């Protein structure tokens, strides 16, 4: 059995390897469709000779931000000998890198839109075919998760506090799955089939990722606390699987030409960043001038906030 200190150091080293790969991938992302595109924005051919070069450099600099946070903290952890804290740092940085990437891409696209060649599409299509969570359920997996969780609850009562938190997280992930299945977006009338195929592939990818996380939580419920080696093996397998799936998804996404969707609500006027209340526009998020704004008039937004508040209360109470 690997001792926790060595395990933490190995995990941190592995994290760096994965990050370098991720950095290269994210660095190439703006030019994935060729030099006539900046992410999903169609730009003039000389874009990268002028403003585009500056936007690209700014995007790359923003991608380096997690390193600026990580290096001093990791140095301090190692110098102070608290090696096990590296595990926490890896978990926090994993979330930070993803959020930083999402915000950076959104910002870069908004800045590039001033130079966009395309106008918003005129005609959009929305599928009215009902979609239910049960259509996307892997019943064997669900059965395994239920049996495992119930067994752990029966035989592991002495650890009920962490089990309660893990179950709460489990319920949250199922709710997110429900949201992903229910969420629809219109597609442009041109290339409608390609766009719908991409949407479906993305939906399945996110659902599979959530199932992975639910599997991890169930594993934690079963063996609390899970030995480090279990986490280590899981991290490697998950990284490989996610990387393969992500590449498949990226290849599929390239087949659908990105378009600017029409703004039928004039959202920039309604949405005040970062929160707004617009009952007449029941979208979860509205795209304002400064970025996405969470609409508190949307039921899912309210349930989401209540869930986070409930998590804090539960954490405090236990």
């Amino acid at each position, binding site marked *: 059995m690997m001792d926790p200190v060595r395990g933490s150091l190995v995990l941190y080293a592995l994290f760096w390897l994965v990050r370098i790969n991720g950095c290269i991938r994210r660095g190439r992302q703006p030019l994935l469709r060729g030099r006539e595109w900046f992410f999903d924005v169609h730009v003039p051919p000389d874009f990268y000779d002028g403003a585009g070069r500056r936007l690209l450099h700014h995007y790359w600099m923003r991608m380096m931000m997690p390193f600026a946070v990580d290096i001093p903290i990791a140095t301090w952890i190692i110098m102070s000998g608290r090696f096990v804290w590296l595990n926490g740092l890896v978990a926090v940085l994993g979330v930070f890198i993803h959020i930083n990437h999402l915000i950076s891409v959104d910002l870069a696209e908004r800045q590039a839109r001033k130079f966009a060649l395309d106008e918003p599409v*005129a*005609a959009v299509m929305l599928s*009215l075919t009902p979609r239910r969570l049960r259509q996307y359920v892997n019943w064997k997996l669900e059965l395994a998760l239920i049996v495992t969780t119930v067994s752990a609850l029966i035989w592991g009562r002495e650890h009920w506090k962490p089990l309660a938190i893990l179950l709460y997280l489990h319920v949250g992930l199922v709710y997110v799955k429900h949201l992903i299945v229910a969420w629809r977006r219109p597609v442009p009338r041109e290339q409608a089939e390609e766009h719908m195929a991409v949407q479906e592939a993305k939906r399945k990818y996110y659902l599979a990722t959530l199932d992975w996380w639910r599997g991890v939580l169930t594993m934690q419920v079963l063996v609390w606390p899970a030995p480090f080696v279990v986490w280590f093996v899981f991290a490697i397998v998950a990284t490989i699987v996610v990387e393969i799936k992500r590449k498949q998804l990226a290849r599929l996404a390239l087949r659908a030409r990105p378009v600017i969707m029409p703004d039928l609500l004039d*959202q920039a006027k309604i949405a005040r960043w970062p929160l707004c209340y617009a009952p007449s526009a029941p*979208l979860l998020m509205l795209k304002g001038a400064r970025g996405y704004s969470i609409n508190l008039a949307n039921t899912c937004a309210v349930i989401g906030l209540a869930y986070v508040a409930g998590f804090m209360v539960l954490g405090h109470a236990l």
Partner: protein
Amino acid sequence: MLLTIDTNDPRPIYTQVADGIKELIARGKLAEGAPLPPVRQVAADLGVNLNTIATAYRTLQDEGLIVIKHGSGAVVASRTTTEHSPDELIRQLRAALTDLVLAGFSTRKILALVARELK
């Protein structure tokens, strides 16, 4: 089962939504008793005002095509509209045919067009 919204279409969006659903019912893609997504959901998905979809659903309800049940959404009531009498519909058809003839469409072309739309 696709609903199309075209910003270049002179019809208001609520009419486009109502006509789109009506067409799906007429083509049999939305059968009697089939549930329609709730007003809030369609408005959120399409990114339009809640009242736009509510007006479209009310129009369909007035025509007897759907039944709106508060709290449980809307369902397709019937494939026959109660709003227009047969005489009125024949008048509308005659007017549309007159417009097509005046626009230079041949009888064969009009018949082909009607056959295509009925498919």
